[in-house]
């Protein structure tokens, strides 16, 4: 590698790079926490202790109480994609492994990576150690089940499964549904005790439940602060704190991070400042997962058009709320928290409420090629949003990890179109 020499600024054909803003303390804490999780998993692996891979909205309370390190392939795939490091794994999954291009790109990326875990030609960052078991909850989608079946087959490791069903109507889960999910959590604990050859510490388990509730509550309070106009945060900031909920929902360190973040946001409110880098002329509700490889471009364009995506439904999926100690409540919460475990009318009417609460002028939807169900919500839910929230909706095509779908030009055109309608509506309302 050649060393980059300092070039005198006046002789450079390129504009001087902008000095990077230092990360706020809360973000630094997130990075440290994430690094610690990975380090602990690697350390456990080196000591011959088991390590798990888990779907994103699984009853994490159990392994947290057992003190067994667990990493999250969806979160890992997002991190790798945001660093533009996903393509080689996706190519491997589609090529050598023969998985079709249409399946979820998180799955392709992760299955590709799992197949080359020991191959030094492939570099994942962050890299996950080889798992010894899998934790599967299908509350986000059915593809997760298929993905984990393939992992289990390839790595020859067991799956601990909590089938969360799907709420196809707009009603509370019936008692027999809750009973089935509860029974699975109970059996999971028993099976995990057998697998680890030790007993669960029930006091610790309860403590983790309490901690998880504190963290979910704190995060909600922070998100709610963005109701203010202008918002104290760029809505995209929320994506940066999701890992706390996915990886460390039951940890005290997450409480510390959220307290710090809350203080930073309150400080912004006090000073009438914001982390949104532009002027907030329009507030939109973002629907869907981020286009991780294009996050920077999306934010740049939003700033250019003075649009702050103040709220997004995706980050609320980890709002797994129940009274600590109430197993039925926990079972129900895991059945209903994810965007994709609820019917389109249920989820889109929630979005309508949130659009109203956050004073959004429009909705910007990521038609994510990977995620069928979220895309269905967008297509079928459009009428619900337009007629109940009376705001314009714009869609753009993209993908969370596959870099071949997103088009910068289309994104800008759609955003521009949305801004024009929002502008007209605002002016008409005056």
């Amino acid at each position: 590698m050649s060393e980059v020499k300092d070039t005198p600024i006046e002789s450079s054909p390129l504009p001087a790079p902008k000095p990077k803003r230092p990360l706020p303390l809360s973000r630094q804490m997130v990075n440290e926490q994430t690094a610690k999780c990975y380090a602990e998993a690697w350390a456990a692996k080196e000591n011959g202790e088991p390590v798990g891979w888990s779907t994103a909205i699984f009853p994490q309370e159990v392994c947290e109480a057992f003190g067994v390190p667990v990493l999250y392939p969806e979160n890992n795939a997002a991190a790798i994609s945001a660093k533009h490091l996903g393509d080689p794994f996706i190519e491997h999954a589609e090529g050598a492994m023969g998985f079709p291009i249409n399946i979820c790109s998180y799955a392709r990326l992760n299955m590709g990576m799992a197949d080359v875990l020991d191959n030094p030609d492939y570099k994942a960052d962050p890299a996950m150690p080889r798992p010894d078991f899998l934790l599967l909850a299908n509350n986000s989608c059915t593809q997760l089940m298929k993905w984990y079946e393939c992992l289990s087959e390839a790595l020859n490791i067991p799956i601990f499964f909590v089938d969360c069903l799907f709420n196809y109507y707009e009603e509370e889960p019936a008692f027999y549904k809750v009973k089935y999910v509860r029974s699975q959590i109970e059996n999971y604990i028993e099976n995990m005790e057998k697998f680890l050859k030790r007993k669960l510490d029930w006091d610790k388990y309860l403590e983790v439940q309490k901690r998880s509730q504190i963290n979910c509550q704190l995060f909600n309070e922070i998100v709610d602060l963005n109701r203010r106009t202008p918002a104290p945060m760029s809505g995209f900031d929320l994506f940066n704190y999701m890992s706390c909920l996915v990886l460390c929902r039951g940890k005290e360190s997450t409480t510390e991070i959220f307290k710090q973040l809350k203080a930073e946001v309150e400080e912004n409110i006090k000073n009438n400042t914001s982390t949104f880098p532009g002027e907030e002329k329009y507030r939109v509700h973002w629907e869907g997962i981020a286009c991780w490889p294009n996050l920077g471009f999306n934010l740049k364009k939003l700033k250019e058009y003075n649009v702050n995506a103040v709220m997004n439904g995706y980050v609320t999926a980890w709002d797994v709320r129940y009274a600590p100690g109430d197993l039925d409540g926990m079972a129900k919460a895991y059945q209903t928290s994810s965007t994709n475990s609820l019917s389109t009318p249920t989820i889109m009417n929630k979005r309508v409420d949130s659009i109203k609460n956050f004073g959004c002028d429009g909705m910007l939807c990521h038609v994510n090629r990977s995620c069928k169900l979220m895309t269905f919500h967008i297509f079928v839910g459009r009428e619900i949003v337009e007629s109940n929230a009376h705001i314009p909706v714009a869609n753009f095509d993209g993908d969370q990890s596959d870099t071949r779908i997103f088009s910068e030009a289309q994104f800008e055109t759609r955003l521009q179109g949305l801004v024009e309608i929002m502008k007209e509506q605002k002016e008409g309302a005056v």
Partner: protein
Amino acid sequence: MNTLDMALQRLQEIAANPRKILDGYLAQGKKVVGCFPIYVPEELVHAAGMIPMGLWGGQVTPTIAAKYNPISTCSVMRSCLEFGITGKYRGISCAIMPMLCDTFRGMSAGWRAGVKDIQLAAFIHPQNRNDTYAQYFLTAEYRALAARVEKLTGEKVEDDKLSASIEVYNLHSKTMMNFTQVANDHLDVVNPIIRHAVMKSAVFMPKEEHTIAVQEIIGELNKLPKHDWKGKKVILSGITAEPNEFLRIFVENNIAVVGDDIAQESRQYRTLIPDGANPWERLSGQWMNRWGCSTVHEKQFSRGKMLVDMAKDSGASCVVICLMRFCDVEEYDSALIIKDVKEAGLYSLCLEIDQSTQNNEQSRTKLQSFAELE
């Protein structure tokens, strides 16, 4: 025309004209319930005195369905929604939909938004079948489904009727599996198009009637001398293997189908409803025993080995995956199947099934190359 030809022709006509069949039932004053693929407990509909009819879409280029269907919706669900919105299914009392994959999760809302005249009765299967309460859950879910269908149609399911319907369905399943065996001795008569028609007609007919028709065909086939097929033999796997234009490529290339794992065909029939005293538990017990299917979670992937065994047992040299466009559960399985089939020293072909196009040229090229292999 002899008895066999007439029987086969009748089933071909039924398979090709479901709307005509539906109109016939409606004209007789019968109530018809639409059943989405797959594993809808049709026995409930049958026991309530109604006609269950499969909803499998058809060859159409969807236009209006696009409003509620993302481009990545599987081909069969897109055409079902198109038919639903455009009135092709008009007259059906309600439609039962199983939440077996993400497309169904989305379609449950898409259908309700787009098809106002046919109410939806949704239900879900438990996937963690090892759990103590999995069957308990499904039994309760089936009862809830029956109650929903009753609300929509006014027809009730009585336990004794359900027991009787279960017998009808088990006999039908056995007959269908028997047909697949007998057909292999007469591949000169039962070519892939005819085989498919015998299978597909079942999804539109009352099972007792279809059983009689297929038994007659089996009887007639058994009267013929066994045929020694000299062409290639394959096993089909997938959701559907149609239309006839697609299957004609097999016929033209002297390729016989000697077994299938097609969801519209044998996949439904290979697991019988177990014995027992309580018909609701018997019905849920069938799901607990299902295997080798992309929509059924198993501890270990058994489908690849199942297909290899099927091929070896029937002398097939190739497993043909008929991959429904945008069917993600089948897409995941396809990679594992191909690996298992190759490891067993067999050929595998992956052909795309897309109801929105008449273009089968890619399949033709692949099948021709396979046919030319020594």
